[in-house]
């Protein structure tokens, strides 16, 4: 890495200092917010959050200060540094996020605290928390981590240190790679404002709706943050099932679906712009979602896993939505369902929701393009000379996109296979390994087997928790960002041979 950094140490280091600093500052502000929020409740452990928060904020501001004035000459920053900066920023967020959890004693083991924090910032929602008898501040912090992680750190950085230039642009595209990157506006800062605005509106809507269903303000605000971020942490040990309320479930369902839509679609809809190709993706998203709900419902009815038609539909709809949007709330114990439903649930984790949303997974637009590319390849068998253009919603995509999407898919499968192997290597059974790898890589939360819907991740040994943490980070940054850091390996090997 030194070789790459050496020639342009100035702008590159400045970019890293800015992105990591901005992220830390945001995390520090989040901790201070937690201290304030906890004042409204039991007020325990406020000191920890205020103290650590202030410290992290100061360090973050120092980082931003270091980079100030340098961001404009970052035009020469290589994409590689963008990837490195963003990956480092997420890692450092997860590390500082673990500190209060360790200090308070929620987790005795640094690895566990790191896992929980990574699960928070990546909006996964997999938890190691078994004892829910914790100070309010701990729950607030879990929710705030997800809320911050949902909007994405580059937006946070821009909000704190209003910068422009190629450097931050590189960082932005490092965070939202490939087909998911939508250029809403020429300037990243404007894009960030739009995204934050949409996020804010969703937040307000969700909070009011949860309040109306009868949640306490504490529960309503916590769940608002984790729903909008499609995170899945809950203040209730039984997750959404603990409320046993159709109203709460409907609100959660509706907000999860909304949060799974491409934010660029909302922006274009508001501005009255051309809705394609986002509208095509949203349509496909809703079709896949409803198709999967119908399939799961039918299989549950045939197998008789759930009592009563209404309950079956309710649990099927909620479970499919929660895994497809990568949220991870639980109402029905899908781990106890028939094998068809269980497999379909895991597959929906991979599909994910729309690109440009807070969700994980491969994303609907990529799945659609994959299907189209596969179909064209089959047609080429029958008409070898046919000229083929990849299209969605009337918009043609370049051959670069075709290659990028196929490459993304290959890499995804590869990382998933290796992740499952590594997870199994820590000594868990195959179903736990392959579902644990799926639920972390697709940033969902619950899996099958030892880590089923009603279990925590404590069923996985320490090594597996580290593997899970890595997969969550890789999945949240859409694979390429983290794995591209290994690119120099490929190059140097080429050079030798």
């Amino acid at each position, binding site marked *: 890495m030194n070789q790459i950094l050496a020639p342009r140490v100035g702008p590159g280091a400045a970019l890293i200092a800015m992105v990591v600093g901005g992220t830390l500052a945001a995390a520090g502000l989040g901790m201070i917010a937690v201290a304030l929020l906890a004042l409204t409740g039991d007020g325990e452990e406020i000191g920890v959050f205020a103290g650590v928060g202030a410290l992290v904020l100061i360090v973050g501001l120092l980082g931003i200060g270091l980079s100030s004035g340098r961001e404009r000459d970052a035009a020469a920053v*290589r*994409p*590689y540094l963008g*990837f490195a900066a963003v990956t480092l920023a997420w890692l450092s967020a997860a590390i500082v996020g673990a500190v209060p959890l360790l200090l308070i004693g929620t987790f005795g083991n640094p690895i566990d605290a790191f896992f929980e924090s990574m699960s928070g910032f990546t909006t996964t929602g997999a938890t190691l928390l078994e004892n829910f008898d914790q100070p309010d501040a701990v729950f607030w912090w879990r929710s705030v981590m997800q809320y911050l992680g949902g909007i994405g750190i580059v937006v946070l950085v821009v909000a704190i240190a209003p910068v422009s230039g190629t450097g931050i642009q590189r960082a932005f595209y490092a965070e939202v*790679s490939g087909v998911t990157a939508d250029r809403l506006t020429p300037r990243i800062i404007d894009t960030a404002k739009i995204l934050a605005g949409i996020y804010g509106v969703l937040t307000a809507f969700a909070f009011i709706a949860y309040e109306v269903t009868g949640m306490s303000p504490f529960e309503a605000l916590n769940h608002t943050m984790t729903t909008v971020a499609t995170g899945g942490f809950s203040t209730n040990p039984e997750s959404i099932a603990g409320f046993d309320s159709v109203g709460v479930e409907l609100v959660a369902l509706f907000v999860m679906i909304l949060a799974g839509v491409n934010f660029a679609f909302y922006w274009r809809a508001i501005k009255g712009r051309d809705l394609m190709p986002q509208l095509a993706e949203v349509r496909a998203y809703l079709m896949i979602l409803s198709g999967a709900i119908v399939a799961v419902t039918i*299989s549950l009815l045939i197998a008789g896993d759930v009592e009563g038609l209404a309950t079956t539909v309710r649990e099927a709809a909620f479970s499919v939505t929660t895994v497809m949007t990568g949220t991870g709330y639980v109402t029905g114990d899908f781990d106890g369902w*028939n*094998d*068809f439903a*269980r*497999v*379909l649930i895991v*597959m929906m984790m991979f599909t994910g929701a729309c690109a440009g949303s807070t969700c994980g997974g491969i994303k609907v637009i990529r799945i659609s393009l*994959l*299907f189209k*590319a*596969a*179909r*064209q*390849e*089959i*047609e*080429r*068998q*029958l*008409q*070898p000379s046919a000229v083929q253009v990849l299209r969605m919603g009337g918009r043609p995509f370049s051959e670069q996109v*075709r*290659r*990028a999407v*196929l*490459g*993304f*898919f*290959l*890499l995804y*499968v*590869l990382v998933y*296979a290796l992740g*499952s*192997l590594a*997870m*199994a*290597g820590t*000594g*868990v*059974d*195959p*179903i*736990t*390994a*392959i579902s644990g790898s799926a639920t972390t890589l697709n940033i969902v939360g619950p899996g*099958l087997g030892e880590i089923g819907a009603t279990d925590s991740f404590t069923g996985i040994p320490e090594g597996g928790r580290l593997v899970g943490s890595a997969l969550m980070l890789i999945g949240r940054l859409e694979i*390429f960002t983290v*794995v*591209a850091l*290994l*690119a120099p390996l*490929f*190059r140097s090997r080429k050079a030798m041979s």
Partner: protein
Amino acid sequence: MSRPDWVPAAGRSASDAALLPIVAGVAAGACGAGMLAAAVLGGAADGQQLASLLVPGALALAAGGTALLLLPRPHNVEIRPTVGLGSITLAWTLAAAIGSVPLMLSGVLSSPLDAYFEAMSGFSTTGATLIDDVDATPDGLLAWRSVMQWLGGVGIVVLIVAIAPTLAPGLQRYFYSEASSVGDSRLTPRIADTAKIVGAIYLVLSTAAGLAYLIAGMSAFDAVNHAMTTLATGGFSTHTASFAAFDSTAIEVVAIVFMAAAAVNFAFYWRLIKGRSLMPQLAEVRVYFGILLLGTVAVTTSLLVNGDVEGTGAAIRAASFTVTSLSSTTGFTTLDFDTWGGFPEIVLVLLMVVGGCAGSTAGGIKVIRVTLIGKSVGQELRRQTEPRTVTVLRMGGKVFNENVRGAVLAFFTIYVLIFALGVLAFTAAGLGEAGAIGGVAATLNGVGPGLGDVGGLENFSALGDGGRAMAIFLMLAGRLEIFTVVALLAALGRALTRR
């Protein structure tokens, strides 16, 4: 494209559709001759149920021979893609239909669906079985199972290495240019010669395997049968317990050597004999043996750590046999790998998915494709950080054009889609998840035994009828490199909707 020059110039037809009855005739004739051979083997052993082989065998041979003598052959016409794909698919589906007859007549498998499953498992060289008690099955029918695999094996290598380029030009991107002989337009100017040489290599290797089994201590009947199913990387055995019935290190070593040999590209042997350039086949073979070694080390380590097997020697023996058997997609078993725990199970499933070399009798994605996929992914990563990099796909010094890259990537995508659909279908047909995943891996890659309900020591009886039909489709599609069957279905679908 002119008339395929491997077709003898007898009667001539101006329509390429005339190819279909000819292919049917070849399939029927080969089946008939094979049944008669199996009857001879069975007659030399227990001599039971020979009529169920002799009667359909004589009929099939007569029908096939008559068709080949009397029917006109397509001459000097371009073979349309649908006809090419159709004739390849017809060869396998018809062979399995004819092959199921003796199984039904003898009462070994009375349900037509089950008999067809067993026959397709034979001709696709898969080795998944529905027979509960193999030991109690009449020897003639056991021999027929082995012959089906042997025919399926020689069929696929001759098809892929020699015939497919002429028969289905569109398939070159999948079968030929990338798989068997990249860079050369064909192996020899005379495809019939190539086919003969490849067939001869197959026959020589089979004979060598039979002799080696005999020397290692198998009975003559077992040796002949296992030689056929080893070279085909098929995996049918004459014993319910498969290779555990012999419990002999020598026999296992022979099996390992010949399973690995059968998973090597036959174009590689051809080039070796002809003294031609060995690239890129040698590169693929190297990667293949690297994978075998790595898989064996991983599984051995896991067995030792978990204490599944007593002693290092036993662990190496169990791991090397199982890894070679599953990776070459043969499917012989000694121990129940289904109880070895998550890590080795996932390693074994991944090995099944990778499979052997292209242009061999092995199934799976194939080593060359996996290598190209890996290289492609590495290049995409480089392009992320250096968008202006120009990347060329290369293996063993040969350059692959962008068409090959597209074809390989699309192949993988469709493979994953079919795999996922198969798992869903198998769970709907009553298998548990591990059984469903293992079952799809075992059928789509032509292995045989899977995990869970269809694990190493089980057979496919746990699968419901719908699942058996799905398994038949997966075995066929996997054997014909997926695109053959899928493209044919797409063409049929298009023809139907057009009306």
